[in-house]
């Protein structure tokens, strides 16, 4: 049974050293309002493990604010808008632990968790340097063909945070079809928080959206413009100018000033 809670309460669910997953893809439908609320906490979370299929602006803010101990994603950047500046700097200074992931390692790791097994085998990586960059990932011999395969370990997840278009009082949520790994995150996370653009009487099924029915979400939060400046198709596009402003600020050494402004932004606050 889901609960409807305010954004501040949702942000307080996150504890130090947890693995949290942020839904959506790079600059599309990311839970930015949730990240803002997390950064508004007087005691910001520390040493988080951040799990994203592709990480972007929302994750870069958390890295810049010193909340992230370990990063797991197949890509961390801002697409057309360039490198993610705070992640890039943290990586180059050795200030963040990176678990180098690829599409196969994240997908097989999630499938292992979903299936309740320790690993899933794959032909990926063999012959590249990836096994050296991830000495924790072991190989296994296929018992039928004797071929050596990667044994991608199960990926745990404490809390997944997704952003969607709408939700209703039954706990149904409408996402869009740029789904990333949102559905798998719902399955593997112990707790699922979904922020939405609007609350409606009843979420209707449609071909141009993705319906996440109850009991997927544990907590639903009303957060209008909650993905901005990432997009929330079809409600609004990527606010590219804001990404350019962010990159310029970081490159000028003004991340802290940007963060102060970001936290003060009230576009997703109710009342």
């Amino acid at each position: 049974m889901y609960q409807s809670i305010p954004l501040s309460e949702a942000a307080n669910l996150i504890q130090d050293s947890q693995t949290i997953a942020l839904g959506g893809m790079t600059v599309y439908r990311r839970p930015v309002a949730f990240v803002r609320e997390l950064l508004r906490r007087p005691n910001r979370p520390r040493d988080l493990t951040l799990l994203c299929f592709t990480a972007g602006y929302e994750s870069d803010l958390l890295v810049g604010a010193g909340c992230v101990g370990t990063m797991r994603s197949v890509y961390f950047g801002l697409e057309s808008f360039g490198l993610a500046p705070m992640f890039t700097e943290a990586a180059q200074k050795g200030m963040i632990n990176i678990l180098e992931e690829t599409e196969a390692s994240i997908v097989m790791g999630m499938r292992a968790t979903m299936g309740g097994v320790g690993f899933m085998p794959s032909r990926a990586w063999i012959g590249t340097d990836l096994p050296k960059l991830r000495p924790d990932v072991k190989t296994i011999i296929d018992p039928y063909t004797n071929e050596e395969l990667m044994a991608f370990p199960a990926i745990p997840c404490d809390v997944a945070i997704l952003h969607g278009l709408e939700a209703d009082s039954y706990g149904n949520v409408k996402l869009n079809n740029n789904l990333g790994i949102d559905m798998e995150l719902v399955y593997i996370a112990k707790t699922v928080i979904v922020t939405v653009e609007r609350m409606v009487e009843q979420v209707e099924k449609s071909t141009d959206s993705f319906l996440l029915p109850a009991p997927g979400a544990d907590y639903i939060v009303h957060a209008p413009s909650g993905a901005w400046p990432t997009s929330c198709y079809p409600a609004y596009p990527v606010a590219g100018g804001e990404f350019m402003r962010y990159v310029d600020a970081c490159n000028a050494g003004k991340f802290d000033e940007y963060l102060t402004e970001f936290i003060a932004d009230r576009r997703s606050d109710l009342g």
Partner: protein
Amino acid sequence: MKSDTQLAIVKMLRIQSADERIQMADFTIDELISVCISRQVVDGEVLAQGINTPLVMAGFILAQCTHAPNVRFASAIGQSLCREWAPLGVGRIEDLWLGKALIHVGFAAAAADLLPSYNPKEFFRPAQVDACGNFNNVAFGHDYHRPRLRLPGTGGIPDVTTTSDHIYLYVPRHSKITFVEKLDFISGMGHTPERKHGHGVNYLISDYGQFDWANGRMRLTSYHPGVSIEQIQKKTAFQLEIAPDVHETPPPSDEEIRLLREDIDPLNVRKLETLGGGARKDLLREILAQENAL
């Protein structure tokens, strides 16, 4: 022997500056790259479209508009299969891949099920590539924990290059920074004895020429108009093989140029990959303004 052929051809070619090249031609380098990508497409193929690779997207759509009407696009954005296309965008790119998709499968199924089964053709943009066609998109520098430049990451490159038959590369700016003797990290697998499945890189296009790996080492097959073989070798940190029938890259047709400029990419999104610095930033701002996405 190799260098004799090379020298003979170099003598036949006039060496010009990049500026002269652009003044002389009625097409730009981004257009030539997209046209060459288009010409690598075979009708009926499934084409995998990655993220932030507009030169490839323009080439794929151009192929469908010209000689390959039955191709299907497997897009990372929306994790979809599409038949129809829409003009390229940045802020509103989802209009294309979400508005026109036939199915959406999510990224888990796209990566683990759809791509390995359909074995699509895909163009990757390497940060470093060696003579054997191994490539790197992890980081620059020897120390993984303190890299000189950390790159965004490898996406699905270590997964598909170890199994796929249809790996293609493109390099918008040919230099010794990209074409290196030794990679810092191997994330994309080329022509190596360790390979158990699939096929090493088939083809590479840069802003200087086209290349294949017919003998397992990178081989120049054509030089772009106004570029000499000597120039290309100078910008490459390892010895290039030269194809016996090396020739000038055939220029785009008027119709190909018209399709790119007027129909496929009127906002010039593809040029974001060939421009740098302030010029790139100005174009990006201009595109976003026209999309009402600033």
